[in-house]
């Protein structure tokens, strides 16, 4: 009976697309996500204009408040809600609909996250939490801000457990089979979200009693280290979300087949196991960490580059194969056979191209001596905007043009496709201006997270101004891009013509080798991950606890 039921449900799903209850979950997450993009983008524009000296922000909503809110809205709300909305649609589509229990967990998680964000945003607006999204102690925000963070994390855990339950249930009913590839990506992402958020939870639990005044001092370096164990994991979660579309969706859109299934799963596993210790390279110029430990971490950070280089090969191989099948010739002229006019291809393709300079910049930052040149300068902001802002986000945008119609039971019209292409162009040009000038001015020494200043008309600082002007131009183009994108998402969700949209999942090659089953052993993968985390963190954390200086009292410096 049970199997008969599932097949009936699967058939029903196939006929009707996603079930309305599951669609509502994804739609709600995407609505929050793109509302956050609109607000966060607007704050970003204000910042860019201020930094170029074109706009003075009022004292009741100063640059650092704007920057804190911009960061939280975009790196925590926009990306996280998008990721969850997308992967819950994936789980529903690939695993035969969400279980009622999982659906309930998704809504509880949604409620907790929203409640957490409201709690966190109130003190930011009241200028009680202008500590930046990195919230480094001993700067202490209002305890309410940290309570908000706790609820956000609890919400994330609820969603991660929901995803694990869903996958476990599928595996129970499909013994011996491989989890469908996109659900495999989802598993990797939720594993990282769960384990990556543990260190930041410990940090926040250290901070709360101290911010409340129950404990007098805090271990600054320990808190900072725990923050980055989470911070860089978040970065690679965005990357893994984007990569899922590159490996699985893009080949289907261009009419090709997937690259090796085994390699895809190996790349996911590598990114999951190596990720958390990678965060240490944010502390290359910190005191209190021995050079030998830092060297180990340079290795751990650089190692993450390896699966990325494998991905680069896989993607171009798929492009070439597909284009040649369509009659493409020559060393490079087959490029013309790719569907450049299709936004579902164009946006992720530009995202991938942006990852070439983005990844190279990442390698620069993970090495000792080069990091010392660019650490905490505008270069880092440029790097962040080319990797997160272009490679990840432009892929997210590309996903929208089929995901939103799919969950809404509507279609992508040629007109909307054209608007999407225009949006992609605005985004690309905007990022070239903004990220390009940020990289350059950073090399010249301009610091990050600093409002407009000429340092009393210092000649060096004045020489940065022309580049900052390009930053403002880029920021303005990006804001136009944000408006178009948000319009496109809401239009496709509520106003586009009704119809059926396919969930584009490419098939493996016909002559593909069978994927070995060890790729399915998540228990083993998690053990390896924890071993690597221990390798990376046991020595420095013990050092910070055993040889701790007297702690720091809280400071409010804003």
């Amino acid at each position, binding site marked *: 009976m049970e199997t008969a039921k599932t097949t009936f449900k699967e058939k029903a799903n196939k006929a009707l697309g996603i079930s309305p209850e599951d669609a509502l979950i994804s739609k709600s997450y995407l609505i929050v996500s793109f509302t956050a993009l609109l607000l966060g983008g607007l704050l970003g524009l204000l910042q860019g204009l201020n930094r170029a000296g074109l706009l003075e922000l009022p004292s009741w909503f100063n640059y*650092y408040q704007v920057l804190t809110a911009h960061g939280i809205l975009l790196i925590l709300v926009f990306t996280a809600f998008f990721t969850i909305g997308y992967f819950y649609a994936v789980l529903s589509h690939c695993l035969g609909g969400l279980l009622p229990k999982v659906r309930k967990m998704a809504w509880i998680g949604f409620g907790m996250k929203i409640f957490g964000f409201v709690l966190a945003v109130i003190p930011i607006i009241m200028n009680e939490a*202008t500590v930046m999204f990195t919230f*480094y102690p*001993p*700067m202490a925000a209002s305890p309410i801000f940290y309570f908000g963070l706790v609820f956000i994390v609890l919400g994330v855990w609820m969603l991660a457990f929901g995803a694990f339950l869903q996958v476990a249930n599928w595996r129970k009913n499909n013994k011996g089979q491989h989890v469908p590839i996109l659900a495999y990506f989802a598993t990797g992402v939720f594993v990282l979200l769960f384990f990556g958020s543990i260190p930041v939870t410990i940090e926040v639990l250290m901070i709360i009693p101290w911010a409340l005044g129950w404990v007098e001092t805090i271990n*600054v*370096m320990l808190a*900072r280290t725990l923050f980055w164990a989470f911070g860089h994991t978040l970065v690679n979660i965005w990357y893994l979300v984007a990569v899922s579309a590159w490996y699985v969706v893009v080949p289907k859109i261009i009419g090709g087949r997937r690259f*090796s299934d*085994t*390699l895809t799963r190996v790349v996911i596993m590598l990114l999951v196991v190596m990720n958390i210790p990678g965060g240490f390279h944010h*502390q*290359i*110029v*910190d*005191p*209190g960490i*021995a*050079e030998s430990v*830092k*060297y180990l971490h340079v290795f751990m950070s*650089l*190692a993450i*580059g*390896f699966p990325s280089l*494998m991905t680069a*090969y896989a993607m171009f*191989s798929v492009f070439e194969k597909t284009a040649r099948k369509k009659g493409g010739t020559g060393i490079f002229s087959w490029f013309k056979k790719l569907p450049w006019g299709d936004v579902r291809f164009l946006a992720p393709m530009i995202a991938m191209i942006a990852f070439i300079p983005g990844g190279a910049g990442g390698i620069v930052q993970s090495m*000792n*001596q080069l990091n*010392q*040149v660019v*650490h*905490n*300068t505008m270069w880092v902001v440029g790097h962040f905007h080319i990797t997160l802002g272009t490679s990840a986000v432009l892929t997210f945008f590309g996903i929208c043009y089929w995901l939103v119609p799919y969950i809404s039971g509507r279609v992508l019209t040629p007109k909307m496709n054209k608007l999407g292409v225009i949006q992609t162009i605005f985004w690309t040009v905007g990022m070239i201006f903004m990220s390009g000038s940020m990289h350059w001015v950073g090399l*010249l*020494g*301009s*610091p*990050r*997270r*600093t*409002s407009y*200043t000429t*340092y*009393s008309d*210092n*000649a*060096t*600082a004045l020489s940065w101004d022309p580049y900052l002007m390009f930053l403002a131009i880029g920021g303005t183009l990006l804001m136009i891009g944000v408006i178009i994108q948000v319009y496109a998402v809401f239009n496709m969700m509520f106003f586009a013509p009704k119809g059926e949209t396919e969930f584009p999942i490419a098939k493996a090659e016909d002559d593909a*080798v069978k994927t070995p089953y060890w790729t399915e052993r998540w228990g083993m993968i998690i053990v390896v991950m924890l071993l690597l985390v221990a390798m990376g963190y046991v020595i420095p954390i013990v050092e910070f606890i055993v*040889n*701790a*200086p*007297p702690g*720091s*009292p809280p*400071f409010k*410096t*804003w």
Partner: protein
Amino acid sequence: MKMHLDEKIWLILSFGLIMGFMLITGYQTFVLGMGPPSHMETIDPQKVDETAPFDNPGITQIGENEYEVVMTLAVFSFNPSNIEIPAGATVHFTLTSKDVIHGIQVAGTNINAMVTPGHIQKITQKFDKPGEYLVLCNEYCGTGHQFMATTITVK
């Protein structure tokens, strides 16, 4: 797993590239002594003013054209400020923070280090070219962060 020759070459190149970066970084760090600022000493962040050498911040000549600068960072200034040194001088900076996390960066040089409360940070630089160097805080430290700057004048 079936693999094409070009794929193998690519994987070997990728792996070689990363190992090459590691070797270069290791050589620079451990052979040339160009490691990142990683001083290990600690200090009570609430008693900086009473603890040597920070009870007496300033510039001391310690050798032929070699100087030590003992400096405290606190919102929103560097102490001492407006440092003057002769061209060709090697300067050893000894730094700590009296309050929140700061970053010291000297535009146009490789001086770039985090200065966290509770730890003493050290960094050395030779100033060959005369001119005025901008010293600034590059970690957000509060609303006056953008004012936290001074200069080093090399004559």
